[in-house]
């Protein structure tokens, strides 16, 4: 067997292992990415699934406990509002009327149980820096490299 053919077979094997590992990692960590409106519209089919829901915190709905471990608020994109209850460390800059992404599960059609709130961080190419939240307080997805 030529060296080229041996290399090709090795490449197929390595690619296969890599694809399998990626599939395992992906299937353990994938989430549906939906907006608050989509979440409310398709609530029945999304109950119990892992979700990442984006939206804006409705002014007047945010309540945070003194130890900043729990928060409740409503999330909206355009029309519908989705009640959210979050537990875990909260971003310092969590505030009303800002864009957030909540990770968690839809407990029932009327409540998203979140375990993580992500606030968008100001970074390069931000055209409107005044109202944005801070990178330093954005709780990024745990499980990256540290």
């Amino acid at each position: 067997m030529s060296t080229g053919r041996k290399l090709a077979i090795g490449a197929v094997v390595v690619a296969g292992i890599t694809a399998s590992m990626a599939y395992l990692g992906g299937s353990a960590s994938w989430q549906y990415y939906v907006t608050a409106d989509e979440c409310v519209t398709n609530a029945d089919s999304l109950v119990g699934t892992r979700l990442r829901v984006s939206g804006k915190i409705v002014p007047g709905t945010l309540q945070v406990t003194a130890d900043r471990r729990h928060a409740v608020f409503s999330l909206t994109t355009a029309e519908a509002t989705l009640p959210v209850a979050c537990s875990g460390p909260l971003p310092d800059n969590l505030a009303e009327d800002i864009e957030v992404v909540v990770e968690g599960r839809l407990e029932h059609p009327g409540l998203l149980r979140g375990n993580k709130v992500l606030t968008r961080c100001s970074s390069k190419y931000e055209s409107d820096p005044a109202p944005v939240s801070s990178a330093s307080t954005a709780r990024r997805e745990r499980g990256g490299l540290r």
Partner: protein
Amino acid sequence: MTVLGQLCLLAAMVACGYAAFACAAGWRLGHRGLSRSGVAAAVAGVAALTVVATILGWALVGKDFRFAYVVDYSSRELPWHYSLSAFWGGQAGSLLLWAWLLGLLALAYRFGPRREASPLVEPTFAVLLGYLGFLVAMMAFGADPMEPSTSVPSEGAGLGPSLQHPAMLVHPPVIFLGYAGWAVPFALAVAGLAAGRLDAHWVRQTRPWVLFSWLALGIGILLGAQWAYEELGWGGYWGWDPVENGSLIPWLTGTALVHVLLAWRYRGVLKKTAVLLAIATFGLCNFATFLTRSGIFSSLHAFSQSPLGWMFLVFMAVLAVGGGVLVAFRRGAMMPDHPIPALGTREALVAISAFALVLLAAVALVGTLMIPLSQAFFGERIVVGAAFYNNVLMPIGLLLLAATGIAPLVNWGTALLPAQKRTLLLATFVGAVSAGIALATGIRHPMALAVAGLAALAVAAMAAALILDARRRDDRRRWLAVLSALRSRPRQYAGFLVHLGFVSLAVGVTGSSLGTHERELDVRQGESIEWTGYSVRFTRLFERDLPGKTAVEAQLDVARNGLPWCTLLPAQHFHRLQNHWTSRVAVHAAWTRDLYAILHRGQGNDRIHVTLIENPLMRWIWLGGCVMTAGALVGLVPAGRFPAPPSSPPGPHVALRRKRLSPKASRAADER
């Protein structure tokens, strides 16, 4: 000043467009006058861009709020150095920086020292100027850094607090230097394909630019990781965010290109791969820009959604189609000189490593594009978490580490010699001993044990290769022989240094990923809490006034095994202008572990909520990056610039070692 800046921007666009046309036409028609006029236009264009950059820098430092960009990204309280870093804080400024750096690099390529006449200079320069014209046109029509503000306010919006960090003074410009640098190998590839001149000369011309761009992008990524570690306050340095991936993916393909060029240079193989990688790496740099500007990705970085991203996408599509057609058209000129003779040769190892790197880049690309891909194929938007990437990084990282270990002991073109086989066995034994020691010290994770073994194997193999090389030298004094070996093959040992840095990086990444511990504490003033060998005492909370912000700092006195170890001062900063809080983590770094503290708000003055994280071996990551940088810098020094190896008096060993290479002979071999 805004009018002058806008005029200069338009002049730069016209000049670059003409320069690209004139240089290409002059080269094609053999019309030297046309080429000369193109070069003059290019110089004028870059000079005009320099004027624009100077005006913007001056306006930012001088808080000239007549410029809309200054209003958006600066404020009166902002220190001057952060005012300057606001240059790349916004879209228009970062594009200007990129274009300006590209212009300077294009001139450096055109007028820089060259050891041999090259027929590729004119077409390469034309491609670079064409790309520069594209960037300047995007600024002129889509993101004008010279745009006047509608009214002149007394205060600006200021720079985002997270960007007010020392790493941000350097990280973005170096990343853009890397992006701009990758345009040169791309331009050389296009010129080589157009001219049908893809030979050893092309490799010699391309190599330093590839190494330079790889180095700049690598330093930029490392600085970004350090910024994330100290500024983002989640305890890690890499979150597999689309924007982070956007810079990593071209760096991975660029790393593959660095190695593939060696295989081409020494054995005349993997030529098509090299050209495709040069085009792909540049295309992926544009992809990174598309990521930051299109707004279609689920990134925690906030971006303005502008049509510029789609312009970059169209540009990438043109690159992909055009590059593919050119490579197919010239495939006959890129046939390998020899087939790869055996798996145990260095060219085979290079092919395997390049494949692994490209595979890793492909997986990162798929993960990054998961939302649009899943929407296109399944009608639903799906995101994948870090496990998707980490699962792939593990086997490929081990494969690369193993290749790094074996590489110094294998030859180009021939299989292993018996002495090399014995040395490799010895290095493997050292690796096994290292893994055994790791096991004995309580490490149980298979990945950590594998990395401990392979890292030791790699270090032992590099040391053995150096010793073997030194023993071939005509010198009875061992240290002089080692010095002679190092001086005779500086590029080879620069490669070793880069690989040593990679080993250190791998050890750090593995240790910090697998051995991290975290604890959240609610602690009262004066109270001590015991945690995994640490005794953490909350001593006091105090406030300090800083320019533009108020800092609330907690003093944590940490003892380890009963002895005072460090004092941590995690803080919360209130930014008066932006009216919000940010965290300032405190890190105590040591060679074995980092202790990382994040202060949270909302507990009153006598009680705080703190997150403590222990990250093992973090320092080895930064050390690895520095060593890789040092190695690449040595590799960039032209071979002729190294001092000649010291001569030593001949001794009786000379006769015994007649067949061994003299320093001069081995130096000549290295030059070849």
